[in-house]
C-alpha cells in the first residue's frame, strides 16, 4: 500500500544552514501524528517544505505515490494538503465567512460563490464561529482567529491537515476546546499532523510521535515509547535530566 504522504531523505537549507536534514517519514490515512521538538528544531520548516512554501533542497516527497516536491503551494493545497500557521494568516478586512469561502473556492474548487458560502457556513458551524460569520476577520479574538484558521483549512477539503501550534497563546480552557475540535476533525477521517512543543498536549491526542532535533529526526514511534526515549528527554530537558531518568528506570 502506498503511504498517504512519504518523505524520503528530505533536506532544506537556508544559505549554509540546514534547517531540516535528511528526514524520512510516512503518514498513513487516518493517523494523528504529533510532530514535536524544542524551539528551532525545524518543525515549522518541515511543514513549509511539505506545503511548498520553502521547497526542499534535497530529497523527495510523495503524495499518494506521486512526487510533489516541485509543486507550488497552491498546487499542493489543491491536492488536499492543508495547513494552519503558527502566526494566524487571515485576510484581515474580509469577513470571517469570506475567509473560509476562499478555501472552498480555490483549493476545494467550489465554482459558485453561493455554494462556497454555504460550504463555508457549515465549517463555521462546525468550528463554533457561525455567530461571527459577518464580522471582519481582524476583529476576532486570538482563540477565534485560530478557529478561523481551522475552518479555512477544512474548507479546503483536505485529507491531510497540518496544525502548526494551534494552541500557542491559548489558556487551558481554550486548549481543551481546541483539542476536542481536533478530535472531531480526525473523526471525519482526515489525517492530522499536529506540531507542538508541549509534550503533554500531544500525548493525549496522538498514537504516534515524531521528534525533530536540530533539523534531524531522532525518534518516530508509538507515543508511550517516544516519551520514554532518553534521546528525546535529552533533547527536551538537557542531558543531566536524561541521566537521572535513566537511573530511575534502571
Amino acid at each position, binding site marked *: 500500500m502506498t503511504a498517504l504522504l512519504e518523505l524520503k531523505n528530505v533536506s532544506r537549507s537556508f544559505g549554509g544552514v540546514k534547517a531540516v536534514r535528511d528526514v524520512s517519514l510516512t503518514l498513513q490515512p487516518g493517523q494523528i501524528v504529533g510532530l514535536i521538538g524544542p524551539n528551532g528544531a525545524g518543525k515549522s520548516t518541515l511543514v513549509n517544505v511539505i*506545503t511548498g*512554501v520553502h521547497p526542499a533542497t534535497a530529497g523527495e516527497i510523495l503524495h499518494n505515490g506521486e512526487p510533489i516536491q516541485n509543486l*507550488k*503551494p*497552491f*498546487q499542493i*493545497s*489543491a491536492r488536499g494538503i*492543508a*495547513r494552519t*500557521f503558527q502566526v494566524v*494568516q*487571515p*485576510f*484581515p*478586512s*474580509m*469577513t470571517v465567512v*469570506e475567509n473560509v*469561502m*476562499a*478555501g472552498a*473556492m*480555490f*483549493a*476545494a474548487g467550489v*465554482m459558485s*460563490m*453561493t455554494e462556497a*458560502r454555504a460550504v463555508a457556513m457549515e465549517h463555521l458551524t462546525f468550528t463554533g464561529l457561525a455567530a461571527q460569520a*459577518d464580522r*471582519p476577520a481582524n476583529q476576532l479574538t486570538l482563540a477565534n482567529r485560530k478557529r478561523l484558521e481551522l475552518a*479555512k483549512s477544512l474548507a*479546503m477539503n483536505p485529507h491531510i491537515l497540518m496544525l502548526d501550534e494551534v494552541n500557542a497563546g491559548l489558556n487551558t480552557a481554550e486548549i481543551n476546546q481546541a483539542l476536542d475540535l481536533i478530535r472531531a476533525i480526525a473523526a471525519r477521517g482526515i489525517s492530522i499532523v499536529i506540531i507542538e512543543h508541549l509534550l503533554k498536549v500531544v500525548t493525549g491526542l496522538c498514537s504516534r510521535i515524531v521528534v525533530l532535533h536540530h533539523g534531524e529526526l531522532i525518534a518516530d514511534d508509538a507515543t508511550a515509547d517516544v516519551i520514554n526515549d532518553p534521546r528525546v528527554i535529552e533533547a527536551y530537558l538537557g542531558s543531566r535530566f536524561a541521566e537521572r531518568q535513566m537511573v530511575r528506570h534502571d
Partner: protein
Amino acid sequence: MTKAQTQFLLLIVGAAVLLLLPVMSGNYTLRLATIMMMYATLAMAWNFIGGFTGYPSFGIAAFFGLGAYAGAVVQARGVPVVLAWAFAIVIGSLFAYALGLILLRLRGHAFAIATLVIAEVLRELTNGMTDLTGGGMGLNLPFFGWGPDALGRFFFYAMFALAAITLATTYIVAHSRLGFGLNCIKQNEDAADIVGINTTRYKIIAFTLSGGFAAAAGGLYASWTGYIEPSDVYDILFSIKPILMVLLGGMGTIFGPALGAVVFLVLDEIVWRNFLQLHTGILGLLIVILILFLPAGVLSFDWRALLKKKVSAT
C-alpha cells in the same frame, strides 16, 4: 429598490445622456467628454492591478504610450484604423504579460519604481528608433479626410465604446472568482497562496488587463489627435492621474474610477483655463492638497457590501 438597482438605473441614465451629447452640444463639450472617457478607461485599467490586487503600479503611461505608438506606427503604414487599435491592444497586452512575469515578483516600493521606470525606458527606445517611430520629431498619422464635427463624433463614440467595455470588464472581474482571488492577494498574499490561489497567474491576469486597456486608450488617442511624440504619450502624468482618480473615486470599486475621473478632470479643466503658464504647478498643488486631505476611508474598499449585495440578489 436596492442599491444595486439604483446604481444600474443611474448608469443607464448616465449612458443615455452621454450618447445624446453629440446631438446636443458643441465640439468643445464633446472633446471634454471624450477626454473624460479616456481617463475613465485609464483609471479603470489601473484599478485592475492597483485597486483589486493592491499592487502599486505606476506603469499606465508606459502601456498608454506603447499602445499609442503601436497603433500609430501601423496606421501610418496604411493599416485601417480599427485594425490598428486591435494591434495596439495585442501589443500592450503581450508586453504587460511578459513584464508581469518578471516584475510581479517584486512587491511594494520596488514594484512601484520598476513600473515607473518602464515609461522612461520606452521613451528612450522610441526616441532611438527613428526609422520606425520618427524619434523625437514625433509621428504624423494619415488624415481622415473628414470634417471636425464628424471626426469629433466618431472618436467620441469609439471612446465611449472602449470605456463601456472596460466598465463591463471591471464589473465581471469584481463579481468573479478572479476578483475574489485578487482581493485575497491584496489582503495577504502568502495566505492566498496557501489557500490554493495561483497567485502568479492571477496577478499576471490583472496586470495584463491593466496593460491591454491602457494600450487601447493609447491607440485611440493617437489616431484621435493625429500626431504623437514620445514626451507627450509617455508623460508620467498618464501614470499619476489615473491613480488619483481611483483614490478619489474608491479603490477596487466598480464605478469609483470613472466617477473619480470626471471629478478630477473638472478640477483640471478649471486650472487649465485659469492658469495657462502655471498649469502644471497648480496641478501639483491640487495633487498635494488632495493627498493631504483625502479621507483615509476612500483608500479602503468595502468588499463585503458588494458581496452581500451579490448574495442577496441571487
